[in-house]
């Protein structure tokens, strides 16, 4: 199933993958804050370009471009709506400044989406789960997350098996109008759900049998240690925010229109 292929993480090791997810998250938040801070196009373009070295270092360019393509539809929509609104509210005129402004709003959206995309593309579920465990998030949530990720490929295979089993009984998933097609999926969804429930019960039994809930002070086989790269990224994040705040208040940023 191609949809689930993307969720099945490919173990790619790069310096970016090895960074502590918590620090990466701080970095993403700082990008987030700066993107919100500025509505001029030049800083937003810089912010966008800033992601590229990370993408290249992490060797996830193909997937990143794919996610860009995914975001492009919404981005185009934002642009068009913006231009249209300006058009109709300022007397059926469009100035180059208007276009630039609409472009920067669109770019801001793209930067926000892409920074998160880079985060998820460069963080393995294991690593993310570990970061959740080590942070102040209650263990139940971290556990729910990693268990869910662990079972995604299992559920995907099961869904395929169930579809095969029902197809072998004459079920034709492709036939009929929209309503019929939705009804056709009932014999696939019910076994999937029932199976998921049975699985949860078995998992719960296994968890109980391995002392789940024995103490609130859970320990961990692994520990996330901060390395040089993490401190560097932290410094970069702080630096970005500092420069952004300073620029925002004390530097007047020209528009591209004015430069032309």
């Amino acid at each position, binding site marked *: 199933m191609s949809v689930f292929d993307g969720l099945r993480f490919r173990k790619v090791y790069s310096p970016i993958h090895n960074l502590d997810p918590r620090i990466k998250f701080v970095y993403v938040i700082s990008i987030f804050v700066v993107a919100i801070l500025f509505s001029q196009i030049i800083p937003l373009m810089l912010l966008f370009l800033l992601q590229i070295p990370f993408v290249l270092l992490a060797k996830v360019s193909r997937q990143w471009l794919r996610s860009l393509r995914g975001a492009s539809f919404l981005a185009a929509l934002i642009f068009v709506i913006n231009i249209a609104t300006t058009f109709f509210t300022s007397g059926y005129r469009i100035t180059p400044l208007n276009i630039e402004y609409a472009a920067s709003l669109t770019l801001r959206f793209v930067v926000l989406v892409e920074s998160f995309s880079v985060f998820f593309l460069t963080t393995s579920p*294991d690593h993310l789960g570990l970061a959740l465990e080590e942070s102040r998030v209650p263990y139940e949530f971290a556990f729910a997350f990693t268990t869910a990720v*662990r079972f995604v490929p299992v559920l995907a295979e099961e869904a395929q098996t169930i579809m095969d089993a029902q197809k072998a009984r004459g079920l034709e998933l492709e036939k009929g109008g929209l309503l019929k097609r939705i009804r056709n999926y009932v014999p696939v969804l019910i076994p999937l759900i029932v199976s998921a429930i049975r699985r949860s019960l*078995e998992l719960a039994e*296994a968890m109980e049998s391995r*002392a*789940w*809930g024995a103490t609130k002070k*859970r*320990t961990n*086989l692994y520990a996330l240690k901060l390395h040089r790269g993490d401190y560097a990224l932290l410094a970069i994040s702080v630096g970005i925010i500092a420069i952004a705040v300073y620029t925002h208040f004390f530097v007047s940023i020209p528009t591209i229109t004015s430069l032309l």
Partner: protein
Amino acid sequence: MAIIETKNLTYTYPGASKPSILDVSFKVEKGEFVLITGPSGCGKTTLCRCFNGLVPHFYQGELKGEITVAGIDPLKHHTYEMAKHVGLVFQNPENQLFALSVEKDVAFGLENVGVPREEIRKKVDHAMNLTGIYDLRERSPHEISGGQQQRVAIASVLAMEPEIIVLDEPTSFLDPLSAEKIFEVINDLNKKQGITVILVEHRLDLTAKYTNHLIVMDEGKVRFEGPPREILSSDETRLIGVGIPKATLLYQMLKKDGLNLSATTPLSSEELADQILEAFKPND
């Protein structure tokens, strides 16, 4: 002192019309390898869950009778306390592994109990070595075979260093070759590490040779208990629907037709082969 003792144990699942286990009484000594068998629905799975308190704590309902496991009454203790003394390995390998790497799964129980990191590391490595999965430690559970997954499940229970390990049909989903490997691992844990083992199985041809204490259940009750050789040669056992090893059946057939075989009932083809070869030797 028996490490497990039950007296008149009776349990009915909530909503069930009749008890799953009825008046079950037996004793298990420390270091024994106990084999429990019986047709589907005989209560062996329910019995397993009594040992660590899943019955009645997880399944609700009332457990009547007395039970002591490693000196503790499971009725009066939480399942997580029982987990330190008795480990339970289940049928389906896939649904016992929840972490994203093998060693994290093996560490799960120790993490839950709050063991310090260095100790977890040591115990996890030790458990993985005992079950032969050390090389798989960084793999994800979905990548490994069913037999390997089951060994991970055993390791994760072993890591908590329980006195008793209970395995409920651990090889149901495995092919015969993987099943044999699992039984060898379990036997080693019993004979070399001194862990008391309770194994629920149908495949008597592969497992009867490891035990001196066989329990046959039917319809919730213990029907036979004792050394496997006697029990497996009786007609009554066969009539319950238990899968008698072919070697044992053939032995009885040959003896009935006059072949001069020894008085000891064989449990495996090796034993029977030796007996047949002996019977064919010329009388000098």
